[in-house]
C-alpha cells in the first residue's frame, strides 16, 4: 500500500497537498510484469532471469505469462520451473499474445508499433503474452528424471530458460522424444524437430553422433509409420548441411 491512504472522513474536509509521488498512484499490488521492451532496472537477484510466471498448472502442462510482451521463449525451447523445491523441466509448445481484459479485443490502428508506442501507449498495458509448456520431468540434482513430477508447478512459480548444461542433460536420454510423441494436443512433429535443434545448438563437435542416436531412437518408435519417419529424417539430414529445415 502506498503511503497516502484516502479514507472517508478525510475526503471532503482535507485540502489537496500536491506533494504525492507518481508511485503513490500505482495499484497496491506491485505490477509483476513489464510491458515495455526496456528491462526494469529495479529487478535484480535470481528472479531477474525469469521469462515468465505460471498462471495455470497441471501435472502434464502449464501456462505461463511472459514477463515481457512478446517475450515468450522460442517454440521448442527448454524451460525450468522452480516450484516449492522442485525443478520442473518442460518444453514450450505454444505462445499467444492477446488482450488481458476479457471483454476488450485488440483492433487495427494502421500504425507501426513505434508510432503506437508514442501515440497510443495504453494499448501495450492491456496486452499480454502467454506460453504453454509441456512438462517432461524434473531435475534431481544434476540428473534429469523423465517422469512427471509428484506435484504440479505452483501457480505464480517463475519460469526460467534452461542453460546449455541443463539442455544437454535433459536431451541426453532419447526418452524425451517418446514423451513428445506421446503428448496429446501438441504439433508433435514440428515440436520434435524444434526441440532437437535446440538440443543440437547446445552441443559442439559431436552433433553427428548425437543425431545418429536420436535418429535410431525415432526409427524404433516410428517403425510402423514409414512416411512420417522418413519425412522427419529427411528434414533432419538437411541441418548438417546448414540449410533451414
Amino acid at each position: 500500500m502506498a503511503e497516502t491512504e484516502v479514507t472517508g472522513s478525510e475526503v471532503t474536509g482535507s485540502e489537496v497537498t500536491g506533494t504525492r509521488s507518481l508511485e503513490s498512484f500505482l495499484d497496491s499490488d506491485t505490477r509483476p510484469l513489464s510491458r515495455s521492451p526496456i528491462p526494469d532496472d529495479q529487478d535484480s537477484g535470481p528472479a531477474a532471469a525469469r521469462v515468465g510466471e505460471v498462471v495455470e498448472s497441471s501435472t502434464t502442462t502449464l501456462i505461463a505469462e511472459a514477463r515481457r510482451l512478446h517475450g515468450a521463449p522460442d517454440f521448442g525451447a527448454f524451460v525450468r520451473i522452480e516450484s516449492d523445491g522442485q525443478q520442473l523441466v518442460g518444453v514450450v509448445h505454444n505462445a499467444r499474445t492477446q488482450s488481458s481484459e476479457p471483454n476488450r479485443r485488440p483492433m487495427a490502428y494502421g500504425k507501426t508499433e513505434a508510432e503506437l508506442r508514442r501515440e497510443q501507449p495504453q494499448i501495450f498495458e492491456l496486452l499480454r503474452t502467454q506460453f504453454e509448456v509441456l512438462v517432461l520431468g524434473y531435475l534431481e540434482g544434476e540428473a534429469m528424471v523423465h517422469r512427471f513430477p509428484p506435484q504440479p508447478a505452483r501457480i505464480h512459480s517463475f519460469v526460467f530458460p534452461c542453460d546449455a548444461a541443463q539442455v544437454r542433460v535433459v536431451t541426453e536420454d532419447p526418452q524425451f522424444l517418446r514423451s513428445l510423441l506421446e503428448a496429446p494436443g501438441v504439433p508433435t512433429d514440428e515440436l520434435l524437430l524444434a526441440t532437437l535443434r535446440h538440443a543440437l545448438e547446445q552441443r559442439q563437435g559431436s552433433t553427428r553422433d548425437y543425431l545418429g542416436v536420436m535418429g535410431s531412437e525415432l526409427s524404433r518408435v516410428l517403425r510402423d509409420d514409414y512416411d512420417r519417419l522418413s519425412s522427419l529424417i529427411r528434414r533432419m539430414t538437411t541441418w548438417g548441411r546448414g540449410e533451414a529445415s
Partner: protein
Amino acid sequence: MLDLSAVRHQINSMVADHAEGGTAAFDARVRVAVTELQRWSSDWPALQQQLDRSRSSWMVPRIVSGPLAQGCTAPDRPERLSVAATDGSQIFPDRHEISPCYLLNIGYVLLHYGTDERPLLSSRPSLYWRDDDLYPQWGGRRTAINRDMVGFRRSLLELTELAELAAASQAAGHETVALTDGTLVFWGLEGRPPDFRQASLTALVSSFDLLASRRIPIAGYISRPGSPEVVNALRVGICPVEGGADCDRCPWLGQVPPCASVESVSDAVLFRQILQPGERSALFESGSRVLEDYGVHQIFFFYIHAGDEIGRVEVPRYVAEDEELLQLVHATIIDQAAKGGGYPVSLAEAHERAVVRGPEREGFYRHLEEVFVRNDVGARISRKSLRKRTVGV
C-alpha cells in the same frame, strides 16, 4: 422480471411521438437559433448588455468572446505531452446487505505522448464503514448517507485525486493536462447544509488553487451535453420587451412568447450547425448559482466538435484567461478524441479502471460475508436480500 412484450406498446407510442413531434418543427427552431446566433455573432457585446439588463428565469452565461457563429480551429498538440485523467465509481450503501458500508473506486490514468514512457493505469478502492462515514453529521443533524451524497463524494474525490495526480506528473517533469469526465460545476452543492458545502468547497477550491499555482490546465469534458445555456442567452436576445426581458412579468403569460421560437434547442444542436470537426466555439462563463462560492475559480465553457459529437468543455478561470493553456486544452481534447474514436481515450481508460461491474459487486459482498463469518462477527443480511438470492416456486 421485465415483461418486454407488455412494454412494447408503450415503446411504439414513444417512437411515434418522437417521429411526428416533429422533425420539421424542431428543424425550424434550430434554424431560428442559428440565425439568431449569426445576428449577434460579431455584435456579441450588445447581446451581453441585453443579458445584463434582463431578469430571465433561465440560467444564462456571460459571453466572454466572439464571434459567436464562428469556430476556432485547433492548434497542434505539443509533440511531448502527458494527459492525466481520473474517473470514479462506487458500490452504494445497501442496508439489505451484510454491512451498510460503501466503496469508492477511483481509476487513474497518466498517458505520456511523444515518448516511449510507460503509462500509469491503476485504480484505488476506498472503503467507508465508520459511523462518521455512514451517518455523517451536517447542519447539526446525523442522517444516514444516501446515494446522492455518495455520488457527490465520489465526484469530489475524482477531482481532488486528479489534481494530485496531475501535480505529481508535472513535478516528475512532464508537461501535463488534467482531464475529468463531466462537469466542474458541482451543482449538487445547492441546498446542502452550510458546513457540508464549506467542507466540499475547501477541497474543490484547493484543487484548483494547486493546479493554478503550477499552471497545469484542467478541463471537464461533457459528452452529449444537454444544457441550453447559450440558447437561453439567444432567448433573451429575442425578447422584444423594452428595457430587457423580465420573465416574471412576461406580457405573453399564458400565450406563446416570441422566445419560444428556439425552445428545446440545446447548445449542442446549435453548435453542430456552426462548428467544423476540430473547432471550438467562443468562450462563455457559466452562470450557475453554485459558482458564487468558487472564489476566484469561476467556471468557463466552450463547445467543441470532437469528430463525431459536439462536446462541452469546462475550464476554471485561470485556464480561460490564459490563451496558451486554453489552446493546450483545445488541442489535447481534439487529439484525445481522435485517439479514442470520438471520446477522449484517457477518460475511456480511466472509466475502465474505475468501473465496478455487477459481478464484482456481488463478489465484494460475498467476500465480505465470508470474512464476517470467518471472524465470527455477528451480521445478518435482511430477509429481503436473502429472499432475492433463493427464490422458491
